[in-house]
C-alpha cells in the first residue's frame, strides 16, 4: 500500500512519517474547536497557513483539504 500523501510504502493509509502527523492533526482539532469554535475545514486551512505547523502535518492538512474538494 502507498501513503496517500507522499506515495511512500505504508501499512495503512499513511506512511510511518505521515501517520504520526495525521494523528496529531486529528487529536488537536478538539482543542482548536473548543478554543476558537472553528470547523474542520477552517482548522485545516489554519494549519496550512500557520508557520509553526510541521511540514509533515502541513502536507497532511493540504491532502485532507484536497480530498474534500
Amino acid at each position, binding site marked *: 500500500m502507498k501513503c496517500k500523501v507522499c506515495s511512500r510504502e505504508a501499512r495503512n493509509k499513511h506512511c510511518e512519517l505521515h501517520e504520526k502527523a495525521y494523528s*496529531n492533526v486529528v*487529536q488537536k482539532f478538539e482543542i482548536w474547536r*473548543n*478554543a*476558537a*469554535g472553528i470547523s474542520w475545514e477552517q482548522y485545516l486551512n489554519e*494549519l496550512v497557513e*500557520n508557520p509553526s505547523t510541521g511540514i*509533515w*502535518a502541513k502536507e497532511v492538512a493540504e491532502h485532507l483539504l484536497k480530498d474534500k474538494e
Partner: protein
Amino acid sequence: MEKYTLIITEKPNAAKRIAQALDQKGRPKKVEEKNVTYFLAKRDKPLAVVPALGHLYTVMHTGKGRSYYPVFNFTWAPRHLAERGAKQLRTWIELVSKLAENAEEFIDACDYDIEGSLIGYCLLKYACKNKEDVAKRMKFSTLTKRELEKAYGEPLPRLDFALIEAGRTRHEVDWLYGVNISRALTLAAKRWSGRYATLSTGRVQGPTLMFLVAREKNILSFVPAPYWSIRAAVDIKGTSYEVDYEKKAFEKLIDADAVVKAVKGKTGRIEEIRKKSAQQKPPIPFDISALQTEAYSLFGYTPRRTANIAQRLYLEALISYPRTSSQKLPPEIGYRTILRALSKERAYKRLASELLKVGELKPTEGAKKDPAHPAVYPTGNLPERPLFEPEGRIWDLVVRRFMAVFGEPATKQSMRVTINVNGHRFYLRGRRILKEGWMKFYKPYVKTEEVMLPPLKEGENLQLKEIVREDKFTKPPPRYNPSSLLKKMEEEGIGTKATRADMIETLYNRKYITDERIVVTDLGFDIIDVLRKYCRGVISVKLTRELEEKMERIQTNSEKRENVLFEAVERLKPWLEELKQRETTIGEALSKAIKRSRIQERIIGDCVTCKTGKLMILYSRKTRKRFIGCTNYFENLCQTSFPLPQRGTVKPLRKPCKGCGWPTLLVKIKGRRPWTLCFNDNCPKKEERRKRLEMQSVQQRSSK
C-alpha cells in the same frame, strides 16, 4: 654519544614548552630531522624532548581488503600503515625509535588523560621497543615552568596502566563498531547502485543521530494549538509600563475577550506592593562542557572550535588543561599567585587586587570531580604574543570566570505591584541589583537587566493605558544546536568529554545534518531508518551507555578489557548477520537517499522567474560546463539559466542576497578569498559597487 633521558610529549608545542621549562638556561637546542623537530636540553642530565603528533598508532584490521565484513581480528599498528594520507608519520615514528636507542631513561609527558596516556604508551611500547614498563610519568595540568619542573622532579614511578587499558579498549570497541557497521552500510549501497559513497555510523554516532531524528520528527509532525494572552500597560506620571495579567494564557478566545471587555478604559488601584530579596551564588568553575556551552551562547563558537582554542591556550601555558570534567579548584593551584600575576594585566588589575584583599579565598565549586585535572583556570601567565580575537575572548572568559568564583553572592531585589482593575489583577514587575558581588568580576558576560519602578503607594490609582488580546500558538520543540546537543550527549552519558565535539562535526561532514540550528537531512533519516529496522542495538542509548560504563570501570580496575571486547563482538554478530541478509533492501534505500541528498546539495533556491521550479547547479551535456538552471526546464516550462564561474567550487549558501533577495552561492577558488555570489545582474548592490568603482577610477584619473 652521551646517554640522555627521552621525554615524550603529545604535541610539538608541548615539547617546546617542556624543553624550555626544563633546560637550565631556558634555551634548549632545536633539532630538525626529516621535517620532525625535537629539543635537546640540559638539566641534572641531558634530556631529549620529542613530540608525538597526536595518535601515531591505531587499531588496524589484520586481514586484507576492505570489501567484506564482519571483521573482528585487529592489531595496533602505525597509523601510516592503516590510513591513507598519513605517510609523513613514518619518519616521525622512525625518529622516536632512533632517539630511543640512545636513551637510558624514559618519561611519558603526554597530557594526563585517556588519550594522552595511550599516545605515550604506544610510542613507548612500539617505537621505543617495550619501554612502557620502565618509563616514568610526568603529571601536570598546566604547561607553566613551575608545574613542569615539579612534575619532572617528582614523576610518577610508572605509567597509569588502568587508564591506558581503558583507552585501548575504547579505541578497539569503537573500531569494531565503526568498521563493521559502516562497511555494511557502504557496501550495501555500493552493491546496489555501483557507486561508492562513504556511509558511517558508530557506537556514539548512531545514538546521537537518533536524538536528532526523534526531535526532527516531533518538529515536522507538530500541530500548534491556539491560546491567547493579554498585553496591557499602565500610565505612571506620563510613562508607560507593561503589566502582566494574572493568568498567563487563555485556552478559550471568549475568556480572553471577556477580560479585555471588563477592564478596557478602567482605572486600577494598587492593592499590594511586595518586595523580595534573593541571593545569587557565584558561578562554579568551568569544566570543558560548561566552557563550550558558555562560549556558544556568548560568541556562537561551536563546541569543537572552543575546544581547539582552549587547547591552543593550554599549549601556550595561558590556561590549565581544558579537557577536564572537574568543577573544582584545589588550593594547590595557588589562587593568590595566579591573581597577583593577573593583576599585572591592566584589564584585570582592579578586580584581581580587590580579590587579593580578601582574607581567605574560597572558590564556589560544583560537584563533579576529575581525578586527573582540576577545573579550567588561568595559569597567571600573560600572552607572549597578541592573541587572535577568538583566543582573546576565550582567555578573557576563563580569567573572569576564575575571578567570579571567588566573589561574594550577589543580592537581587524584585518588586511586584498588584493592580486591581474591575476585579482583575495585573502585575507590574521591577527588579534591581542591591549588591553586585561576583557579578562585577564576570562582566560583561553576566546579564543584569534592571527594571526600575517609580515610587508607588498602596491604594494609589493607575490608569490602564493599553489593553490588547494577543493571538498565540504553541511552538514546536526547539531544534538542537551543537551546544545543546553536546549537553544532551553528556546527560545521556554517551561519548567522552574529548570526543563529543568531534562526533558532532562528523555528523555534519557525513551530511547527516545541516545548519547551526540542526536539521536532519534525508540521508540522516534513512540511515536511522535502516539501523532501526535491522540493527536496533547500534542506536540504543541504553546499550551504548552500558558499554560506556563498563569501559569507565576498566579505569578503576573493576572491569576487564577482554570481557568488554567479547561483549561488543557478541552484540555485533547478530546485527551484522541481519544487515547482510537484507543487503539488497538496505542498499536500495540508502542509494536512493544518497541520490536525493546529492540533488539536494545542488539546489540553490526557488526559481526567480517561474516561482514553481527550483534553481539548481546543472552541467551541460555538450560542454560539461556548469550553470544554474530551473528544474522546470525538463518539463519545458521554464528556460531560466545563469552562468557560473567554471573554476573552484560553488556551494549554495541558502541565504538570500541582502541587495535583491535572490539566492546566493559561495565560490571558493584556490589562492583567493571565498566570496558570496549573487547571480542577479540587476542586483542593486552590484550597481552600487559598479558606481563606486567608476568613481574611484575617475578620482584616480583626475589626481594623475
